[in-house]
């Protein structure tokens, strides 16, 4: 019989074999279980029945416009970081029918389709994505207009987080204060020790599961070991800025001269006065320079775990008697997004890129009281030409027109 639920903040340990029991317990509670799986050369979320289906000894190499999985001789279960998908599609589906209308004998009948929100448990969520979820919560649940579909799916979500042991070159959660360690917003959080996992309780239902599985409390040494893993990663990420400035001051090792491939840029973002910086540089030449590279293809916004824009369209059949109102993911990089009865407002790619970056990093603060960026790096990796928002901010900061004007 299950004992007293483990309290929030309690640490226990769970073996690999017991992870299967965790999956079983979630499934017996009616949860559909999804976890990271390999598909078409990437880590994606997919249904999982057996814990052996998790990719073991696999890491991801990510850089601007490139993503490759690599086998490594370790037994780590979660040493890749984030793939192209986030939790976004599970709560805010790429396509959703909001309303159905049928015309019978000249009269319209409207029905709102029932919300589909089967209980869902996600294993392997990273800290950046938990922060993204908290931002999406503000978008869809905050204010007077609550999205009923999102709300129902959110209530039926069980999250097993994983604390990252490594970061991709595109990760910059430390700059955005969103990681790497998961602090809140999960039901359970795993840290991979060897060979067992540390498991932290983050919610009452997480505590019930820990009790049901009769997991052993962690020793202080194991808790410390878990903390050290996160601390080491924080130190590595925090060292990136210093490392980058050393590289700049040592041009003798510059890649072009030696003929070797350039070192991968390890990302970080200086967010100092970023609101003033971006809004004070709306006419910066960099926007046009970036527009010459930018494809306005919308990939950055589609993979962004916080981008929430959607297009709503009425779709009719040939008779005109059956109409569905459909909502689908949209992007500020499309012409349709800013098209009104007077035409398209943001005609140029420069104006669209500027809209996206200034919203994401600056005006999001006014709208939602937080940055729209969680530093997951997906927009860098999945940009087909590798445009890197952290580089864009550096370029604008290096020639800060607003600052120059103030100094004159």
């Amino acid at each position, binding site marked *: 019989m299950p004992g007293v639920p483990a309290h929030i903040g309690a640490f226990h340990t769970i073996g690999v074999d017991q992870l299967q029991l965790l999956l079983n317990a979630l499934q017996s509670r009616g949860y559909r279980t999804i976890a990271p799986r390999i598909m078409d050369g990437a880590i994606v979320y997919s249904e999982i029945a057996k814990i052996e289906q998790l990719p073991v000894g696999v890491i991801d190499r990510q850089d601007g416009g490139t993503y490759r999985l690599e086998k490594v001789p370790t037994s780590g279960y979660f040493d890749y970081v984030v793939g192209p998908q986030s939790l976004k599609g599970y709560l805010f589906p790429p396509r959703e029918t909001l309303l159905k209308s049928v015309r019978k004998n000249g009269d319209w009948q409207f029905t709102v389709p029932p919300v589909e929100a089967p209980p869902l448990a996600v294993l392997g969520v990273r800290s950046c994505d938990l922060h993204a979820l908290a931002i999406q919560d503000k978008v869809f649940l905050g204010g007077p207009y609550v999205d009923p579909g999102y709300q129902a799916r959110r209530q039926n979500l069980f999250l097993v987080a994983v604390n990252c042991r490594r970061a991709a070159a595109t990760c910059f959660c430390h700059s955005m204060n969103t990681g790497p360690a998961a602090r809140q917003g999960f039901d359970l959080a795993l840290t991979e020790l060897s060979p067992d996992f540390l498991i932290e309780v983050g919610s009452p239902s997480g505590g019930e599961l820990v009790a049901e599985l009769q997991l052993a409390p962690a020793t202080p040494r194991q808790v410390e070991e878990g903390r050290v893993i996160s601390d080491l990663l924080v130190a590595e990420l925090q060292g990136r800025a210093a490392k980058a400035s050393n590289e700049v001051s040592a041009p003798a090792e510059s890649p072009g001269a030696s003929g070797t491939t350039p070192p991968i840029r390890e990302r970080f973002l200086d967010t100092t006065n970023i609101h003033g910086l971006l809004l004070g540089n709306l006419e910066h030449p960099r926007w046009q320079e970036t527009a010459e590279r930018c494809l306005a293809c919308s990939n950055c916004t589609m993979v962004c775990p916080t981008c929430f824009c959607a297009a709503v369209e009425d779709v009719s059949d*040939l008779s005109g008697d059956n109409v569905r109102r459909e909502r689908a993911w949209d992007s500020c990089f499309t012409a349709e997004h800013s098209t009104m009865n007077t035409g398209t407002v943001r005609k140029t*790619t420069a104006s669209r890129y500027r809209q996206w970056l200034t919203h994401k990093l600056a005006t999001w603060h006014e709208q939602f009281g937080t940055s729209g960026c969680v530093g997951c790096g997906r927009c860098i990796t999945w940009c087909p030409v590798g445009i890197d928002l952290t580089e864009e901010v550096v370029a604008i900061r290096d020639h800060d027109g607003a600052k120059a004007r103030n100094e004159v």
Partner: protein
Amino acid sequence: MATKPSLAVFKFASCDGCQLSLLDAEDELLAVAGAVDIAYFLEARTQQVGGPYDIGLVEGSITTPHDAERIQEIRKQCRFLVSIGACATAGGIQSLKNWADVNDFIHRVYAHPEYIKTLSTSTPIADHVKVDIELRGCPINKYQLVELITALVHGRKPRFPSYAVCVECKRRQVVCVAVAQGIACLGPVTQAGCGVICPAFNRDCYGCFGPKENSNPNSLVQHDAANGIPRDHLVRLLRNFNAGASEFRLASDHMERSVSQS
């Protein structure tokens, strides 16, 4: 259109695949036949009704002096003129002749070249007459065709996206073949509407729907070339069914010049 609108289907230089998409719309075909009066359609009717027509679907490109005249007459006969498919909207694969010497072709292919009267170029319908709506693709997508007819029957604008194939790929959660495999894919510069058939089957988009709005193929292929994709491959990728579309043509010419310089 208060009464049942009449529909005519015309063919120029093309393979017939796009007009056959109408007959391939099996589930919707009876509804289409009920909503419009199919007045002129050589592939579907034995008797043809003369114009004028409410809707004219034009397949194929203009490649002969005779066709250049014929399209003028068709324009006069049709209230809404819709060019359907890559041949009609961009000149089709046959626009490769725009880069070559057509007399050389004629002398190599025909025993009696003096009988052949052809233009030196293959050009889209819109280069010759005003086109009201374009339906992209090689072939066109049957759902877009049905949407077009639905919209015209009900007197509204058809819902055709002008954004990139990538938007549909990401909505379907298809893993990007360009980023995850390093394959040169034209999805980011190509207009959506095909249902991402190619990337969903783990291969590259070859741009059969033609350039998206604000298409930037130059940036894409320069990036691909920098990542080691052979430049002549990139030229061929752009010079496909939509070789004649201006954005693809300019980017392929630019890339070709860099091949000859390297």
